[in-house]
């Protein structure tokens, strides 16, 4: 595996992804819409119930930040489904396999191309959210709520791990499915457990504190390892040529 090769693949996929309006909007709209609308909800809550307990607002803020996990576990699919299934349909992987590049580099390049823009979009959006949310909650909490220890665990450990898991699952799906749309639908199911946790947090049945976030990260990393192993097995030169055709 060579860094240059990986960069060439990732660069190409990023460039190709960027030419698609759907991907540009997806990366921009969903995270930014959340970044601006969630603080607005905080404002409404405080405005309508000035006597609300600070702890309730803190819980709200904490689970709102977790809301961005939904973006993390869905956005990579938008890019990966084109970079994998799109290429499968157009058979543009075949000429790639005719180059000296190793399949490992191809795989890694495609993973980076899907994960990197997602993380950047979500990091930017959650930063905006935290800034605005701090301002909205300042009247009640008298100090900035974000960032806290959990914030860093969520942004720098759990989110990258979750984005990677989504891409791994995309790769596994792409070996079986022949069109972009159905791949996106199947991969969309990844969002369900994440949304479930979000709702549970919102209802107060899960406390998203540091310990819980570390446990989730560990669980996702374990899944990452398993799916990565499986992904390298389906993403093999011979396998792609013979079975993906």
């Amino acid at each position, binding site marked *: 595996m*060579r860094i*240059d*090769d990986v960069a*060439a*693949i990732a*660069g*190409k996929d990023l*460039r*190709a992804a960027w*030419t*698609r309006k759907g991907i540009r909007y997806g990366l921009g709209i969903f995270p930014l819409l959340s970044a601006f609308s969630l603080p607005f909800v905080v404002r409404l809550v405080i405005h309508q119930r000035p006597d609300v307990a600070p702890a309730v607002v803190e819980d709200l803020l904490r689970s709102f930040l977790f809301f961005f996990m939904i973006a993390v576990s869905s956005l990579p699919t938008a890019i990966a489904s084109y970079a994998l299934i799109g290429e499968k349909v*157009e*058979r*543009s*992987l*075949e*000429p*790639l*396999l*005719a*180059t*000296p*590049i*190793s399949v490992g580099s191809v795989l890694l390049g495609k993973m980076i191309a899907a994960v990197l823009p997602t993380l950047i979009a979500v990091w930017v959006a959650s930063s905006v959210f935290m800034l605005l949310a701090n301002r909205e909650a300042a009247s009640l909490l008298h100090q900035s709520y974000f960032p806290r220890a959990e914030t860093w665990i969520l942004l720098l450990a759990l989110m990258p791990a979750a984005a990677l898991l989504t891409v791994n699952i995309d790769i596994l799906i792409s070996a079986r499915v022949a069109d972009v749309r159905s791949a996106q639908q199947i991969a969309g199911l990844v969002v369900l457990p994440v949304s479930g946790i979000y709702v549970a947090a919102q209802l107060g049945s899960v406390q998203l504190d540091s310990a819980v976030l570390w446990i989730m990260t560990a669980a996702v990393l374990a899944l990452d390892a398993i799916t990565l192993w499986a992904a390298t097995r389906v993403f093999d*030169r*011979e396998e792609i*040529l*013979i079975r993906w055709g």
Partner: protein
Amino acid sequence: MIRAQGLTKRYGDFTAVDSIDFAVRRGESFGLLGPNGAGKSTTMRMIAATTRRSSGELEILGKDPNRSGPEIRAHLGVVPQEGNLDTELTCAENLYIYGRYFGLARGYLKLKVEELLAFAQLEEKRDVKVDELSGGMKRRLTIARALVNEPEVLLLDEPTTGLDPQARHILWDRLFRLREQGVTLVTTTHFMDEAEQLCERLMVMDRGRIMAEGSPQQLIREHSTREVLELRFGSQRNAEVAAAIADVGSYQEALPDRILVYAEDGEQALREILSRGFDPLTSLVRRSSLEDVFLRLTGRTLVDE
């Protein structure tokens, strides 16, 4: 350049390429001629070091693809059967990015891309997305892409399938230039005219096996007569007439729509048939072609009609 012995590829129980032997010399234009499903693409993929052989020996540029895949691929140019360019990208980007996959330097590629666009006669389409190109242009761009690493051997899998006659001729002209520059060409095709145009030496393949090998002229001399008389009597009468004239010429082939009489002198064969009181709806004397060679060797036509 390329040497294969007992080269075999199996997919499960199915043998796509069945123990074939061949060799390609430096600077030569070598062809694989055969109908769909003959195993041409599978053979090409093994030569391109993208698919592993099931058994047999294979040596490309003096190396074994099982052990030296990347080194071999670095010196090959591959034009796959399906036009598989990156459609979201422009012509120039396609060439440039492909060059990066070979680890070529940016500075070198900047110049090379312009040179290849000129070669493919696509300078005006430099910044146009591949989506918007015609079939012939895409094909030329695919060939240009395969040349980005200045390969010693260029592998072309059905280069003109699906192109109109004019686009084919433009493409052949480009391939002639490459030959003049000393690039070794290996081409697969199911068009006999293409095989005759492009290949100095041919291997006729059918059902994973080699049926014959030699130059187009040699193959025609060995496996066919000089001329062919084509007769049509209408679909009902063909079989009946064929039986009655079975002794005219060297041999006959009765196809559903016509009878082919193989003879050194076609006109004389026609006179003989007319003198027996048969009057064909149409008759035509022509020179033997590779199509006739294939028909003789396999009893089937190259292109499903």
